[in-house]
């Protein structure tokens, strides 16, 4: 039996998932699209050049790398967690890839394998810490982020070496159909796999079930532990892949090149309507969130506001979106 009634109970938000409501879910899906359209309209108003296919292509190219990095973040947030190490892993991947490639096409497969292995390893570490040692996801990924940053610094001793291979550059930046780059096509392929996974596979069902109610999932024979760990591994892999593609895009390696992805992937996932508490949303939303983010960055750059403005804008929009979605979900509960 329930006990004390709580008139407007106070305090921190816990992981109790708000009641689902068809209206809320539609809001959750619709609002990001509306924001995207508005964002695009504003961007075009500021800089008409963004209506042109080449510009759209550039935007998509930027979006593709962020989008791949955001795959992992989407999965992890869906299960009720978070991954703060995404940016650091992308950076490390960039540093290692450039060093191994050293401008030579022959090293491409090796570089890719090593980079993916590192990402998977970090993800595995995160997963094990979170699942078996019960380290809160925030702290675990924060700690692994720090370790990875340190690893990157140690590896390069402060000065990144190496260059991307021509084949990779061509793959990532080469244009198909005049508009789409190789990077975008890769993103497309990845998106299809992820969306298929989440919507149609048993594993995808497990992800949503665990995100909504971990205990009940356990009682229903869902392999909770394995699912959590695999998702963090996936996040590490995707972050590493993003860093690899980033190498092809920029042509070389820079310290902290991927660090901004930490904030951007979280922003993209939330802007896309996925719930911070888990169990609701999906990668389709993240794709929209990614596009909004990329448009935002471009628009700010055009207007002349540099990094500072971007950071402020992220924070404000993030808070605003969070407020909107959380309040709507709570009100219709």
């Amino acid at each position, binding site marked *: 039996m329930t006990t004390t009634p709580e008139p407007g109970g106070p305090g921190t938000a816990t992981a109790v998932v708000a009641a689902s409501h068809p209206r809320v879910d539609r809001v959750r899906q619709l609002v990001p699209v509306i924001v995207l359209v508005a964002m695009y309209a504003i961007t075009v108003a500021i800089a008409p050049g963004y209506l042109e296919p080449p510009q759209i292509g550039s935007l998509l190219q930027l979006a593709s790398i962020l989008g791949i990095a955001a795959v992992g973040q989407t999965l992890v947030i869906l299960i009720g967690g978070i991954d703060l190490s995404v940016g650091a892993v992308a950076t490390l991947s960039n540093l290692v890839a450039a060093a191994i490639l050293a401008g030579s096409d022959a090293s491409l497969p090796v570089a890719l394998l090593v980079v993916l292995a590192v990402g998977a390893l970090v993800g595995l570490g995160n997963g094990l810490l979170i699942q078996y040692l019960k380290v809160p996801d925030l702290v675990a990924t924060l700690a692994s982020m720090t370790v990875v940053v340190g690893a990157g610094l140690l590896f390069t001793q402060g000065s990144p070496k190496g260059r991307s291979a021509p084949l990779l550059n061509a793959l990532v930046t080469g244009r198909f159909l005049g508009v789409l780059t190789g990077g975008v096509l890769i993103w497309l392929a990845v998106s299809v796999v992820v969306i298929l996974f989440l919507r*149609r596979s048993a594993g995808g069902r497990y992800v949503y079930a665990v995100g909504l109610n971990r205990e009940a999932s356990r009682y229903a024979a869902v392999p909770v532990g394995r699912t959590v760990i695999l998702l963090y591994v996936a996040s590490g892999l995707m972050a590493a892949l993003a860093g690899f593609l980033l190498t092809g895009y920029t042509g070389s390696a820079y310290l902290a090149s991927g660090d901004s992805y930490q904030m951007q992937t979280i922003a993209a996932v939330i802007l896309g309507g996925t719930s911070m508490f888990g169990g*609701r949303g999906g990668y389709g939303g993240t794709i929209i969130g990614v596009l909004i983010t990329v448009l935002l960055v471009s628009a700010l750059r055009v207007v002349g506001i540099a990094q500072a403005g971007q950071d402020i804008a992220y924070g404000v929009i993030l808070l605003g979106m969070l407020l909107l979605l959380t309040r709507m979900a709570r009100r219709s509960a």
Partner: protein
Amino acid sequence: MDQVGTPGSPLIELRGVQKHFGGVQAVRNVDFMVPAGTITGLAGENGAGKSTLLKILAGLHQPDAGEVWYYGELQSGLTPASAKKAGIAYVAQELSLFEDLPVSENILIGQEPMRGPFVDRRRLLAEAQRVLDLVGSEIDPDMMVRDLAFADRQLVEIAKAMVGSPRVLVLDEPTSGLRQAEVARLIGLMKDLRQTGCSVVFITHRMGEFFEACDRMTILRDGTHIATVGIDEVTPGEVVDLMIGRQLTDAFPPPLQMEPDAPTGDALVLHDFSVHGTDVASVTVSLQRGEVLGIAGLAGNGQTELLEGLAGVRKAGGGYQVGSVAGPFRSVRAALKAGVALVPEDRKRHGLVLAMEVYRNLTLPVLRTLTRWGLVDRTREGGLVDDMIRTLQITPSDPRVAAESMSGGNQQKVVIGKTLLTEPDVYLLSDPTRGIDVKTKFEIYSLIRRLAASGKAVVLVSTDLAEITSLCSRVLVMASGRVVAELSGEQITEREITRASFAAVAA
């Protein structure tokens, strides 16, 4: 109106109070009175409405109907805070102490004596010591609650209630963890309070305590007031009879004939089985196919934990054989594979993912068998889901409805449907009909009969004695994690079960 505190006039009066939760009527039209200078015992089985009644009395629940009177004045807008201020001190069954704060701060939380902006430590300790002495505790008020045993924590909770010199002390199972000497001391405190014109109301499951401490007893059954008697007007046996009564409303389907080709033999054998992290231990029993085994006893004595240990939800140890497979099982999946499935006690938190659609809930445990090349075969799934909805008559029949929008009875049907789809040999049902309408209850009983007749084995944990006595061919009574009685055949009566449950607790 009667004067406040005049001997014989009630300090508290409840008139015609009613309270329901969801679809269940917990308290039906009860009149309850607490005269000044008395100790009243409140008795009844699990689910009789005792705790709810006391919570209404102490302002924690608002009754749907009826009135609450304090000292001859009708109360409106009663809250726990205003009840406390009026001198009604309530101690809940569940302890709510802060482990990482010392005893003294726990006792006076929210009302610490101040000296300027700071807490007056000296007065804090002194007052804490005063109430601790009152309840006869020798705990050092500087100790952290974390380091206290359960019995000591209970005493701290009672001491907390004594702050501010209450006029009515309301205790919900205050003695469950206490030893003899401490119980005696507490009863002494109650009698001291009585001397000063204050009153005590308390719930316990130990008959002996009622007869030692109380002047009068009120017995509830099924949310209804059955009787209020002076303690010397009644015997313990009569109290038990009043508590049990006769259930007139529930009908039970008759047992079915075993199907001719139904399998027989042992379904499940336990030897010295224990569940880690609980006090369930030394359970030895064998379960036959076609049998419905009941597990009774006062709630919270390990019945749920036993089933969870059998189903792979909790780690367990000891001898555990299911057919040719040896347990204990390290995961729910392993248990399902061996043919053991659990319908959990808490259907909202453990039985279902409420925010998820019915069809997803139904097929969650068996998804592995419904996939083709990693993707879910929606056609096959749809077929199974529709079949189950039809078979169990789940309403609404749209599988895309979210589970949380359904009634309790239908939610339970989804949980059962989910279990049926895993096709186990052994069904573990933990309080399956709690909070469910009568019609659905009957459907579930019929299902249990059918399962037994087809050679499945069913273990039924329930606090509804009518259920247990009507459906089960054998009953185990549990107390403190152990099996204290095994009843079969003629012995399975509500009286016997209640006797066995109470006898075990009288320590």
